[in-house]
């Protein structure tokens, strides 16, 4: 196991102040604090070469967990082991074996072309300049960004900057990549390039990737396995497809109508998602699908009828919001 989290917990103490003048003064005199349990008892493990999606709403504890795995935050309890090291000791060997990319933070020197930042990285990671040159060429070709290496970073678009951040983060050939929202705020093209890049990079170098993203497309395209956090706790660890299928117990039935129907005609046919003059959308329990379809064909003026599973995005969104999934999967 190249990455192991064993009962990780993190509790923060934060200031607690109500808005308004009186509360401000009160806060000045006596600071009230409260404990926030950002991460509680999270355990999972990654095998070398795996690409795993890390899911959860904002504030579910993803970033804090990533920071504990990279040694930036000391766990309140529990143990992390990454490439054989305890991250928080921040040993040179450990740091040279990992990388962290954060979509909302930049490390390239703002006023200079990225090439200059790469040279600094080379010195800091004690890399040979020729190796670095080779790697820059290879990575920037994969990302289709070779023509931007000499432009000052401040003059680049967000997508171009992110691609160069990726190049910088991978110069030292890390074994484990922690990617925190690497596609945040990028347009669809740039997202696709980066997605393809991560897939190819993983395939070619066998690097382990732990990825968080708000874009389900990133997750579905890149990962077989997902780890889901909800309110700091782990609620699911397994394959993406079984997460979706086990959760989805309903089917969507879309019906094209010859003539409009009355609401009363729909009684007993499942939940109505949409009711228009020429179209109907119904949600029907999977187990009741057969008899309900028979009823529909019998009672309604059907021109066309399709049965689909609800979109993955909706399902995942629902799981992340409610944290409901473990019961179904474990059962």
């Amino acid at each position, binding site marked *: 196991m190249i990455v192991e989290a064993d009962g990780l917990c993190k509790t923060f103490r934060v200031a607690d102040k109500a*808005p*308004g*003048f009186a509360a*401000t003064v009160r*806060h*000045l005199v006596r600071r009230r604090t409260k404990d926030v349990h950002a991460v509680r008892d999270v355990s999972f493990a990654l095998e070398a070469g795996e690409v795993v999606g890390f899911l959860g709403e904002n504030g579910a504890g993803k970033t804090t967990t990533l920071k504990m795995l990279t040694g930036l935050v000391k766990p309140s309890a529990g143990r992390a082991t990454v490439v054989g090291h305890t991250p928080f000791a921040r040993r040179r060997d450990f740091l040279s074996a990992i990388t962290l990319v954060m979509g909302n933070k930049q490390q390239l020197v703002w006023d200079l072309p990225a090439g200059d930042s790469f040279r600094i990285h080379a010195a800091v990671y004690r890399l040979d300049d020729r190796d670095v040159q080779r790697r820059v060429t290879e990575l920037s070709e994969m990302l289709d960004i070779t023509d931007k290496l000499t432009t000052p970073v401040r003059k680049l678009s967000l997508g171009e900057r992110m691609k160069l951040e990726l190049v910088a983060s991978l110069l030292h050939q890390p074994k484990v990549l922690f990617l925190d929202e690497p596609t945040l705020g990028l347009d669809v093209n740039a997202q696709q390039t980066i997605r393809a890049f991560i897939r190819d990079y993983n395939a070619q170098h066998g690097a382990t990737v732990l990825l968080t993203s708000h874009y389900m497309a990133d997750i579905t395209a890149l990962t077989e396995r997902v780890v889901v956090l909800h309110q700091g706790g782990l609620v699911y660890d397994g394959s993406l497809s079984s997460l979706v299928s086990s959760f989805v117990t309903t089917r969507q039935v879309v019906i094209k109508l010859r003539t409009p129907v009355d609401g009363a005609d729909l009684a007993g046919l499942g939940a109505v998602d949409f009711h228009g003059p020429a179209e109907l959308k119904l949600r029907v329990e999977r187990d009741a699908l057969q008899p309900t379809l028979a009823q529909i064909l019998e009672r309604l003026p059907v021109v066309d009828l399709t049965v689909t599973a609800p979109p993955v995005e909706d399902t995942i969104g629902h799981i992340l919001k409610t944290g409901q999934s473990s019961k179904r999967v474990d059962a």
Partner: protein
Amino acid sequence: MTFLRRARAFLEVYYAYMLVYRSELLLWALAMSLPFISMGAWIKAADTGAFPLAPVEFGRYFLVVYLVRQLTVVWVVWEFEYDIVQGRLSPRLLQPADPVWHYVGGHVAERAARLPFTVVIVAFFFMLYPEAWFVPSWTETVACLALSLLAWVLRFVLQYAFAMAAFWTEKASSIEGLWQIGFLFLSGVVAPLAVFPEAVREVVLYTPFPYLIDVPVRALLGAPITLRDVLIPGAWLLVALVAQRLAWRAGLARYSSMGA
């Protein structure tokens, strides 16, 4: 009425904001230690040399310098430059109030938040140096406060005028830095104008500098106020206001043509 309500909301929010950074306000109150350093050197010098002020008078002078500086601190150029560079000016331009009121609000609220620290430091001073204790008369106090207010407004407007350079260069604060050097040495912070050679003093009195510190300080220590003490800073204020308005208009035109 709406003006008052708006002003109150501004001040409350900015006061809360300042209190969040109260450890820094404490640092700011300490940062103005230069008058106390000058005080030490001048008290010692007056002990042994022939200077127009006695040691205890130097002590009082620099204490009041400290107070007047606390009352008249201005940093609008830094804030404005930051707002332009970070693109925070644009949303403010959309609000139906001149952006300057944000800065004014911040400055006024900060004064209130800073006050407790200042009181502590003054009390500390008199504990260490009880001989310097004095009680100014009402008229002296009012004169000093009025002149300090004038000094504050003048400093704010001057600095805001310099801040307009941020529309053209990313280094508006460097330009202001030059001005700051003049302020440091010629306003009376490192030495009272009374110890300047006659000829130098006469020239310096036509610049805005002494009216920012030395003149309000002397007012509290009982020196008579002349018409000149109001007219010269008043004239400078007028110049700064006109320059600021012109630069603001030209700067905005440029800012919006650059795509804000």
